[in-house]
């Protein structure tokens, strides 16, 4: 029976080529846009190399000092603060302190390379899953000795060393020579906590360790033993901040800082102005935007589906006249719609894969590796199915209840 249904459905879709095309176009392109947007979202906020275990990671990237009279200043915390308080936290498994990435210049063969450099400790490499193509990260020894060693990314390796060997060679960055000990895959620039072109030991920046202010140019990345520990870590962090506020020099009234997951820190920085955590707000806005975006194609789909069914009212009449029950007719339309939607889904899937590959290749987003999010794809497809069924099957259901004669005459008026 099902095979027969599918056969008929296929025949119908071929016969009504134009309507089929409109439906397929609508479904597949809507899914495609949805996929590209969610993949961009994942690219920025989701688990991704090297921040793979996002549910176990927290980031400290901002500290705000309130000085009274409404004057406040905020920015990345200092090494002093992170080293003295955050590194000594009890609940996390590991804490890494590293500098923000800084733009520097490097010159090679009369060409300029604008590079971003980041100073890190050895825990940085333990917490994050960098994919090493060559060599290894620097360890505790190199950090302790402030060795001039560097890990570089793949693109820098290509631009600086070409096809020749890189390991053990010297790279001169900002008038300083480093020995290359590792090459890693590129990290997307939007991953501000891990991204850089060149990573060197944090001790090379030791002149900044002496500054006892709370603000400076450093981040911390915290890794929990398990995802369930995250609230405990946040609690401990909040206690530390209260402590710091209390101990603080007279002119500073209040210190604010948070250990946040990636999305939280974004939601705090932008809609929340660095104060409230606005994740819910952000999600609401995104859901609203997605809803508005889906609305038009959905109305369109419903519209087309209704037209498609109405057009076939006489067919329903004939089937009824020859003894088809209401159920068989509805079954036919259900199969037809599901079939069409799945076909659109498949097309949408292929299109999304193509467009994502195109974006990755075009270099619009530096070092991007966009991939398909299958969960979102499934949701999109489900949504299409629901609307397809509502719009395609409900009129059919109504018509299947009509008497054969009325249906033959073109349905109710």
């Amino acid at each position: 029976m099902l095979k027969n249904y599918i056969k008929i459905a296929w025949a119908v879709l071929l016969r009504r080529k134009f309507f089929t095309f409109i439906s397929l176009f609508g479904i597949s392109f809507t899914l495609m846009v949805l996929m590209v947007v969610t993949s961009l979202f994942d690219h920025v906020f989701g688990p991704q190399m090297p921040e793979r275990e996002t549910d176990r990671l927290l980031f400290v990237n901002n500290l705000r000092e309130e000085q009274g009279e409404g004057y406040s200043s905020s920015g990345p915390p200092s090494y002093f603060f992170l080293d003295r308080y955050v590194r000594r936290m009890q609940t996390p498994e590991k804490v890494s302190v590293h500098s923000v990435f800084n733009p520097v210049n490097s010159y090679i063969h009369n060409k300029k390379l604008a590079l971003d450099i980041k100073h890190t400790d050895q825990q940085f490499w333990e917490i994050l899953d960098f994919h090493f193509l060559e060599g290894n990260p620097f360890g505790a020894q190199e950090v302790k000795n402030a060795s001039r060693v560097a890990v570089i990314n793949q693109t820098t390796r290509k631009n600086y060393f070409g096809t020749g060997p890189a390991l053990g060679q010297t790279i001169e960055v900002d008038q300083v020579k480093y020995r290359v000990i590792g090459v890693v895959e590129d990290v997307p620039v939007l991953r501000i906590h891990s991204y850089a072109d060149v990573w060197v030991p944090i001790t090379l920046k030791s002149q900044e360790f002496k500054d006892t202010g709370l603000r400076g140019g450093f981040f911390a990345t915290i890794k929990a033993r398990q995802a369930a520990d995250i609230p405990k870590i946040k609690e401990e962090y909040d206690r530390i901040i209260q402590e710091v506020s209390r101990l603080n020099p007279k002119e500073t009234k209040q210190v604010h800082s948070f250990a946040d997951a990636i999305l939280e820190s974004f939601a705090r920085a932008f809609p929340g102005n660095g104060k409230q955590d606005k994740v819910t707000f952000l999600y609401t806005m995104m859901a609203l935007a997605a809803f508005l975006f889906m609305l038009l194609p959905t109305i369109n789909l419903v519209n087309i589906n209704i037209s498609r069914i109405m057009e076939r009212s006489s067919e329903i009449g004939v089937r009824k006249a020859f003894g088809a029950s209401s159920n068989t007719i509805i079954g036919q339309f259900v199969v037809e719609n599901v079939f069409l939607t799945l076909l659109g889904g498949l097309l949408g899937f292929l299109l999304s894969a193509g467009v994502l590959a195109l974006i990755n290749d075009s270099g619009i987003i530096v070092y991007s590796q966009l991939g398909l999010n299958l969960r979102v794809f499934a949701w999109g497809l489900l949504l299409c199915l629901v609307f397809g069924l509502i719009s395609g099957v409900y009129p059919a259901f109504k018509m299947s209840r009509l008497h054969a004669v009325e249906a033959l005459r073109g349905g109710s008026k």
Partner: protein
Amino acid sequence: MIRHLFKLIWNRKKSNFLLITEMFFSFMVLFAVISFVLYNYHNYKQPLGINHQNVWQLSFRPNADSMGQAKAIQEQMMQRIKSFPEVEAASLAHNNVPFAFSSMSMGVSYGNKESVETNNYEVQDAYKDVFQLSVDQGRWFGPQDAVALHTSVVINQVLKDRLFGEEEALGKQIKVDDSTSYTVVGVIPHYRADSEFAEEEPALFRRINLEQAKPDQLYASLLIKVKPGTGVVFEEKMVKDLSRIAKDWTIEVTTLEKMRQSKSKLTWVPMAAMGVVCGFLIFNVALGLFGVLWYNINRRYSEIGLRRALGATTRQIRNQFVGEVLVMATFGLLLGLLLAAQFPLLHVFQLSAEIYWQGIGAAALLIFLLAIVCAVYPSWQAAKIHPAVALHEE
């Protein structure tokens, strides 16, 4: 005839409901996107007021040990830079150079008027030559301002209009707080240096007076105008030389052209993405509209035959169907207009009302165009129907 069409659509409002909703949402989407694009385009057409060709920015990050001598080191660097024949002009500044992701602002006021939030730039005399600024009232500041009682400042026309309106601005004092006032010595017509797509904001230029600066005073940027054709070879040589003066400082060089590009990318990438998504939505709607109209016309075969029998010409049939679609578009537009008109009326998002009205007009035009394009072929098909055949199809 038009009344007849309205009557037809109105009586068939239930089955046309979805089409009208679709038109309504399409209108809203187009309105939003077009207003956004118009706003950016409108800003883009305004003069920047600066010439950033061959201007480089050197940014400094000193190491902590040498902070105490920052001023002395920078003075040495300035001398070295001015000695290069490739450099035409050079001026220190804070990080809020044109196209930078950094801004400094403060409130200034004149008389009893409310204070105006103003971008505030601390620059040297040569800044005018670096960007070839034109001063149309008064003069740019110079060494003679070093001893002025109130700091001499140059402001842009936007700030002048906000503070003084039609009044003369030159020689007047503007107040920052109870203890600080500035004297206006010049007005420049434009200074729109945030982004090519941004509106011009009030701007105020203060003179850097190195003699009076504290020893640890640091200006994080140095802007230089180089001779055309100067490239990376000179850049490397200059950085090496400067590194010898400022040991352990990080010196970064970038061209303002590059900064302009990355700043404008911030606007046009989302704009292009929105355009593509909007285009897709509209195309989708167009296809749907086309399909539904086609189907509707097929369903109304006998009506077409009847109208022909009653004396309608092919042209009248065609016009009727195109007209019906236009009437539906009008219904959708009226709904949309009700909503869209709130934007200029309530000044949502601070865009000028003119841009909203232009957006509404353009969106309405596009919807009508879309409706006509989608209706022409099916209507032409309808007009071709042979009346004798159509009347017997029942």
